[in-house]
């Protein structure tokens, strides 16, 4: 994958992330209504934004290629397998993805 394609994929993931309810909810909040200081609030929003972009990269890759293993997702998104597993746990918990059989002794993940 060329650098330009990778950047386009990441940008599309960011656009999807900003369309998602979760990111809209946190970025649309007024800081005054949240009982934490501004610095902490910023850190929380930044980390959510970062996670959402990465999760939408994974979702985009599965949408494009069909069921994928962690290793395949890592190759497609350039994310570390441990980061992918962390996101898969969250996405599975939220009912976005689920297992879809095995390949080379690794679970395949598909969108629900």
């Amino acid at each position: 994958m060329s650098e330009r394609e990778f950047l386009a994929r990441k940008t599309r993931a960011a656009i999807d992330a900003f369309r998602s309810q979760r990111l809209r909810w946190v970025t649309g909040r007024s800081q005054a209504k949240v009982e934490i200081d501004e610095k902490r609030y910023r850190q929380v929003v930044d980390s959510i934004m970062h996670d959402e972009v990465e999760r939408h990269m994974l979702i985009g890759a599965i949408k494009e290629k069909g069921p994928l293993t962690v290793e395949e997702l890592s190759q497609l998104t350039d994310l570390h397998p441990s980061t992918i597993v962390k996101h898969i746990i969250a996405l599975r918990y939220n009912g976005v993805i689920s297992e879809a059989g095995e390949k080379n002794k690794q679970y395949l993940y598909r969108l629900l």
Partner: protein
Amino acid sequence: MAEEFEPLIVAFCCNWCAYAGADLAGTSRFEYPPNIRIVRVMCTGRIDTTLVLESLRLGADGVLIAGCHPGDCHYQRGNYMMEKRFSYIRKALETIGIEPRRVRLEWISASEGGKFAALVREMTQQIKDLGPSPFRPANNPR
């Protein structure tokens, strides 16, 4: 001889201030580069983050968001909302790996035609210095 890179800048201008400022720049015959494509919106507060990211993804070299000065918003809080959203846009660009300086937020009133023209000149030069958008195909320098 290689053609000089001419950037494409998408400008989202608020109807009440910046767009009127751009109009004044035209009627006052202030010269500015033709690299800018103006999109009139009713308020900067309605410019979604996705519009800015989509503009860059589709090949814009820079995005300018121009609205009323703080305290002058026609809808009271629109420009403050944009200011807050702008910090998230910059953060998102850093996360993706796009130079955040490609996107600018500026305040221009309806009487600041000269400022609008000067801003477009300055931003065009800034984007020229940054180079073409990473989304632009290598064989299409425009």
